[in-house]
Structures are given as C-alpha cells and as structure tokens.
C-alpha cells in the first residue's frame, strides 16, 4: 500500500521530480562512466602486464630475484616445465635466461635486461611478437643467428634501427665479461614504457654459444587459460617445486594486484561525495513536499495512520526518487560505455604521459556488475538518509492544527 502511494506521490509534481531525478542521474552517470573508464584502464594494464611482461606465474631459483645473479638458475628446468605443462588450467610454459647487462651502439649505451628465449615457445606465452609493426622488422626467426629484438625506446636511445648492429655485454658466472654483436631484427613497442626501456630479446641458442654451454634457465613463465585458475595452479606448482620461488603476477607486480581494489575504493569515495552533494537537493525537495502536504499528512494522522507508517511513507517516496535517478544514471552510463567500449577512447595526444605510467593511450571502458550493485546500495542509502529530516518534520505536524487550516 505505502509502496503504491509513495510511487504515485513521486509523480505528483512531475517537473520538480524530474529535475531532481535528472540531477541524480547525471551524477550517477558521471561517476559510473568514470568508473568504467578507470576499470577499463586497469584491466588493460593488467592484461598487458600478464601477456607482455610477467605472465600469470613465474618460477625462479629462491635467491634469483634479489640480485639477478647468472648462477642462480633453476635446476632441471625442462623437467620442471614439463611437470607444469600437465597441470589443468595451464595453457603454455616457456623457459628464459634473464641476464642484466649493457647494450651499446656506435653513439650510445644503455643498461638492459637480456631475455634469452625460445622464440616459438615464447610466442605461446607472451604477445611481444604482436607488438612489432610492419615497418619495424620482424620477430626472432628460428635458425638465424645473433638476432636481437629491441624496444622502440632502446632503439631511440641508441639511435639505431632495424638491421643495425649493437653490442650486448654481460658478466658470466665466473666474472668474465662477455660481449656479443647482434643485429636488430625487429623493434617492438608495448603500452608500458617502463618495460620497454629495460628489455631486449635474443635467442637462447645464441646465448648458449656465447657461454660455451647450455644457457642457464633463470625464469619459467606460465600462462593460464583463465585467471580463475591462478590460486589453484600456483598451489599445485608450489607443492611440486618446494625449493623454487613461485610467484603470481599479483606478487610480481603488487601495485597491479592492488590496482583494482584501490580503484574501487576511490571510485566509491567519488560516488559518495557526488551523492552526498545530491542529498542536499533531495532533502530540500522532500521538505517542500512535506510542507505542501501538511493538511493531507494531518488528515492521515487524524484518521489513524501511526507515526511509523507515516515515516515509512515519506522514506519510501524519497528512496523511489533517489533510486529512479540512480537507475536512469546507470542506464545512461551503460549506454555510453556500450558505445565507447567497442570503439575505444583515443587519448593518444596524452600517449607519452600514459606510457610513462604503463597505460595504453587507447582506453576501452569496462562495466563491472559489482560496482553497479554497490551504486544501487549507495543510492538507496542516500535516499534513506535524505528522508530522515523531512520525515521527522512530518511527524511533528499537529493533526488538529493541520486539518483545521481551511
């Protein structure tokens, strides 16, 4: 009964209600779309990090990540890799040698991380091979010697291009300085400028030749078919390889692991501020409603509506007003997100800034159902809070005076 009366009362003054509803709708739409943009950016960053940089899981010798010593390699890596490949949920596994060193050109030099890979296996785990544009050469080819894949940032720093020669220098386990001349086969570019500044890729066979022995494996990278398998597969790998360090992408890049959580908190904070500001408008509107209906409310109390029901009626009307605005706002944000999610939003004019933080300049906004549910809850909460003062004013009405006011 009260639900029906409250809903009908919302539309007694259509213009006033529509103004309040549109104000709430715009506020909610703005916050929701901002959330969609930020979640989209976060998802892209996490996807890029997993597919280009860290994969889902990495294994190392227990001390390797502290000092990146060439001698801290994984014992029996092929056996370990084969064991991992058989775990349900694992899509692909690759082995890498990871050595810190320097690269030099005729004009410049740079400190870098040399990733010696099996090109074919690596293609199954990372998407670096897709980050080479048509005009920037090609990926490492099997059978061709002394090729190197560098990033556009490194190429720019060294002032080199495809087919240029560079020197790679690193220190072996016994302290010997080893130099190797490599020809650039391709130049890649990811959305993460920080990653690009440090990483180059060579064929592991070439490293083995330089070392005069099988190149040690420092890192085994694991790609899962779905991130939902992360905890389970990690647990299995740890159990089967207790001596190795087994880390998920969240542990390898903890700032990424926290990104979604931190974003959610800050977005709710933003939404809360917007709704708090809108609440003042809702309170004002409902106060006008109560003052306009003094006689009607007095009549209701006279004929036997108790205070609890009167309070409930006012509160329901306020919640309906708020919720209608909230739903309209979410519909608007869903529509705008739907349109822009497909085409993306081009912020390439800010590309340098985005890449320096590791973000893609092309954003695809993303809807999150849990954020919408949270928004609905917050809107209802705003309605409830906003109803308290007007409802208390209504309860103070003296029915004798109210109905007397003819």
């Amino acid at each position, binding site marked *: *009964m009260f639900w029906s*009366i409250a809903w*009908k*009362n919302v*539309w*007694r003054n259509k213009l006033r209600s529509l103004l309040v509803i549109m104000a709430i709708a715009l506020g909610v739409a703005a916050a929701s779309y901002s959330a969609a943009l930020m979640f989209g950016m976060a998802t892209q960053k996490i996807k890029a990090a997993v597919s280009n940089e860290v994969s889902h899981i990495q294994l190392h010798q227990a001390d390797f990540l502290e000092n990146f010593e060439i001698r801290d390699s994984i014992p029996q890596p092929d056996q370990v890799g084969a064991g991992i490949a058989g775990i349900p949920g694992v899509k692909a596994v690759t082995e890498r040698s990871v050595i810190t060193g320097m690269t030099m050109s005729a004009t410049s030099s740079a400190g870098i991380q040399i990733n010696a890979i099996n090109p074919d296996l690596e293609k199954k785990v990372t998407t670096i091979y897709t980050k080479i544009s048509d005009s920037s050469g090609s990926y490492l080819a099997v059978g061709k010697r002394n090729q190197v894949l560098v990033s556009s940032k490194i190429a720019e720093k060294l002032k080199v291009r495809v087919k240029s020669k560079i020197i790679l220098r690193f220190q072996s386990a016994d302290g010997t300085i080893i130099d190797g001349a490599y020809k650039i086969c391709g130049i890649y570019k990811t959305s993460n400028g920080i990653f690009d500044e440090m990483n180059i890729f060579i064929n592991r066979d070439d490293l083995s030749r330089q070392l005069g022995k099988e190149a040690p494996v420092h890192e085994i990278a694991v790609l899962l078919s779905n991130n939902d398998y992360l905890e389970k597969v990690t647990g299995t790998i740890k159990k089967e390889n207790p001596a190795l360090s087994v880390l998920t992408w969240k542990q390898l890049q903890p700032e990424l692991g926290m990104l979604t959580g931190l974003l959610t908190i800050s977005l709710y904070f933003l939404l809360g501020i917007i709704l708090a500001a809108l609440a003042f408008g809702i309170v004002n509107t409902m106060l006008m409603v109560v003052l306009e209906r003094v*006689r*009607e409310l007095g*009549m*209701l*109390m*006279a*004929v*036997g*509506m*108790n*205070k609890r*029901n009167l309070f409930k009626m006012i509160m329901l009307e306020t919640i309906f007003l708020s919720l209608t605005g909230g739903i309209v706002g979410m519909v608007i944000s869903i529509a705008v997100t739907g349109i822009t999610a497909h085409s993306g939003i081009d912020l390439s004019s800010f590309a340098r800034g985005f890449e320096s933080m590791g973000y893609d300049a092309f954003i695809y906004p993303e809807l999150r159902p849990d954020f919408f549910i949270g928004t609905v809850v917050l809107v209802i909460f705003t309605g409830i809070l906003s109803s308290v003062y007007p409802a208390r004013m209504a309860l103070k009405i003296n*029915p*004798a005076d109210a*109905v*007397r006011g*003819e």
Partner: protein
Amino acid sequence: MEIIRLIQLHKIYDESGIPVHAVNGINLTVSEGEFTAIVGPSGSGKTTLLNLIGGLDKPTSGEIFIEGTNLSDLKPNQLIDFRLRNIGFVFQSFNLIPVLTAHENVEFIMQLQGRGREERHVRTNELLKSVGLEDKIDVRPRNLSGGQQQRVAVARALASKPRFILADEPTANLDSKSTSNLLDIMEKLNHVEHMTFIFSTHDQRVVSKAHRVITIEDGQVVSDVNQEHFVHKV
C-alpha cells in the same frame, strides 16, 4: 447507549502569554444513533471540542470517555489506533489523497486496519454504492465535484466501522444541491445503520436536519436542544 461522555472539559491555549479558554468546563454525553449539530459563532470552540472528542488534541483538564475508555489513559500510539478503529472523520476540505482513486481512498483506511483484500474490496464497493458513487470507483478526486468528493470522504469515514463520525463543517465548501445530497445520505446512514454523527456547523440546513443542537459560546454550552422538544437554556 452512551458512547461519549465529557466531564468538566477544559482546553486552554497560550496565545503569546495570554490564556485563551477555547473549551471552558463542558459536560456532555452523546448516545448511540444521535444526529447532533454543534453550533456557535466563530471562535466559540466548536472545532476545538470536536478535536478533543476525536483525540486529536489533549484537554488541559477534564476527562473524555469514549465507550468507557478514558482517552487520557491511552499512550500516543494507542490513541492513534483507537481513532483508527472507533472514530470516523469528515473534514471541511474533504482531504482525500489526490493520487488515489475514490476506491483506493476508501480502501486505504481498511488497509491501515490490516483487513484482508477480499473484505476490503467488497466493503469499499458497498460503501461507495451507499453514497451513490458506484460509477466513480476508479476516478481520482480531481475529476470529482466537491459534493462527490465529500461523499467519498463520508464513505472513507465509514470504512473503519467507527462508533461515531465527527464532521467539522462538512458542507462549508459545497453548493446547496451537494449539501442536500450529502445530508440525505448522512440521514439515511443515521436512520438505517444507527450511525452517530456529530457535526460542527454554521449551516442552517444541517442544523435543521439535526435531532439535537448544542450551542456553544466562549467555550461553554449555552443550550442543548432536542429539536422535537423545547429545552431550557443551560
């Protein structure tokens, strides 16, 4: 059977430090089936008296008994519930809920009482038929004339099966034809269902229909006349 008894009833308002005796020592009884008009000049205390009887206001002193229940003994929520179940109200300005239809306005009172859907529906239709509005069930107040709205208000007042109905200037906003229709309906309800009506009114047409006329001046009863007999002034 006596349904209302007022004993030494006083109501004093404090108007900017000056006490105003709106009701000044009234003793009164009303029996079941009465059709009573309370008349008097403006400011005589008619509406205040009605509000006190209806439990909308508290007396400064004195007692109000409705079928043996002393209203002063009731807590606020009990008083509201008592009104819901025992007293019907008809107001000068009809005071229907504008967003509800005639049917819903009448049904609303029974919903407050917690009655079942079937019972509410049947009784609402009966009541609207009894006031001659069976063809206006789904019409909202804005599409009803003043007289029709007041008839809906009467139906609403009857919906709760009250012991009596208080009507404060029920004809003040009606034309003569509507007034006549309304009074006929109220008279019929009084004759057929023995519903007790207590009016406050300036309207001579209402007074002429009343069986008992109580005249109030300055918060006191100055005469209490059974229209069929001449009774000395109090």
